[in-house]
């Protein structure tokens, strides 16, 4: 094992991650117990509350396995402990990889490339990944109480008015989609550029992206046309793993 991978997979790092996750799990337990007791106190049936717990466990099991696949995909370059931490709290696979790539370029690397990574770059990448995703958390810390009070107050005062008033559609949801479209366009454009002689004639990134896209197209067909909705949770991670496997096979073949 090279020294970089040994450092990012060190035993103490697992311990630190376990400690952080234990804290956050404890937080979840406290909220769960408090809410359960509050439900009973206001007269909700315990049977119904238990049903919510069981259904939430069942509902989460399959998507959690897909997150685990993401941990496998990330662990090859960033090690298991950081991938475990990043995909267990706040982030999601698409965010983590994109930010890791941006941060790697920020410290002067060509990207998330094992041959170039070192522990100094790793800690900077980890810091960018952590701080970059805290926007929502800070919004909750500073504005959630005010925002929810405003919403609840508004709901009470304008309940009748709201029933009659048509909701104005907002650009917010489209803005997030547009932002991600732009993000994907920049990356795909760079893979097309890489194929050209001036870009290094490296066709592997475009090939891998193409295989992942083809695989995702199959998933989208099955989800949208054939209504296999359960596949939605796996489509991204599974498409990535198939494309990554294709990279290995093609590399062995040539």
């Amino acid at each position: 094992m090279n020294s970089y991978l040994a450092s990012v997979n060190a035993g103490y790092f697992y311990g630190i991650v376990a400690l952080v996750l234990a804290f956050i799990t404890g937080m979840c337990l406290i909220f769960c117990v408090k809410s359960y007791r509050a439900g009973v106190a206001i007269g909700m049936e315990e049977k119904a509350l238990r049903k919510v717990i069981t259904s939430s466990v069942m509902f989460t099991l399959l998507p959690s396995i897909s997150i685990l696949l993401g941990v496998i995909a990330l662990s090859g370059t960033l090690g298991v402990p950081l991938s475990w931490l990043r995909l267990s709290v706040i982030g999601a696979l698409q965010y983590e990889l994109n930010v890791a790539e941006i941060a790697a370029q920020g410290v002067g690397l060509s990207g998330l490339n094992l041959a170039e990574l070192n522990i100094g770059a790793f800690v900077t990448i980890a810091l960018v990944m952590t701080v970059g995703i805290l926007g929502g958390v800070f919004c909750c810390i500073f504005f959630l109480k005010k925002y929810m009070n405003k919403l609840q107050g508004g709901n009470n005062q304008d309940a009748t008015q709201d029933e009659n008033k048509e909701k104005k559609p907002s650009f917010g949801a489209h803005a997030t989609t547009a932002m991600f479209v732009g993000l994907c366009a920049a990356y795909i454009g760079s893979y097309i550029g890489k194929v050209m002689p001036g870009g290094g004639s490296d066709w592997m990134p475009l090939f891998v992206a193409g295989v992942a896209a083809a695989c995702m197209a199959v998933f989208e067909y099955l989800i949208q046309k054939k209504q296999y909705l359960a596949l939605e949770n796996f489509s991204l991670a599974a498409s990535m793993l198939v494309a990554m496997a294709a990279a290995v096979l093609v590399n062995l073949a040539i």
Partner: protein
Amino acid sequence: MSKATNNMTNQKAVSPQEKAAFFAEFNNGLHRIGRITLVLAVIMLVSVPFIVGAMNGVMPDMKGFLKGFATVGLIYIPVAIVEFLVYTPMLGVGGSYLSFITGNVTNMKIPCVMNAKDIAKTEAGTPEHEIVSTISVAVSAITTTLVIVAGVILLVPLQPILQAEALLPAFNNVVPALFGALGLKYFLKSPQIAVVPLVLMSVLCIAVPAAISQTSLLLIPSGGLALLIGYLLFKKGKL
């Protein structure tokens, strides 16, 4: 209280006034605990890179951090604000604190809350919904943590295989794999937004090969252009 909500409550127990007073106090408690635990969690999370650095005799490179964060912040801070404004009314107080610290909000927590809401037949904005959503987010986060812990325990013995030389092309191409799959999904969702940025970025990278290694900078004009096109289409009612 609505008929639907009545289905899951024991009406003998509490009057509406008592319930409202209790709920206000309960929410204040959640805000207090939520803020304290979130601040502590942020401190712990930010400490991790510094601790790992200290153990290895290095520290994060602040210049590299600021350079990376400038791009990341430009993209993800607006996304975080939009997500906060859109999702918190669905998640409720407790559900929001937990969702934003445990992540996977859109792909897991929101569907989980919607599922729990349907099962319990509660309505958004009611105390019952607040309680059900908090329980469902908490249980979902704990389940994910346990599944990943089990997976990580299984992953550790597989380390030598995962680090085999033959698998290097797989891990070196994890980013193209992500954007290939994600690109198709988003391009299908909004083809009219995608065409121009995709063509322009491809032409730019072919004409100026030096731009290829600066993807983090390309994200800004590409994202900005997509936003502008999206906004114009939205204004024209074509989205």
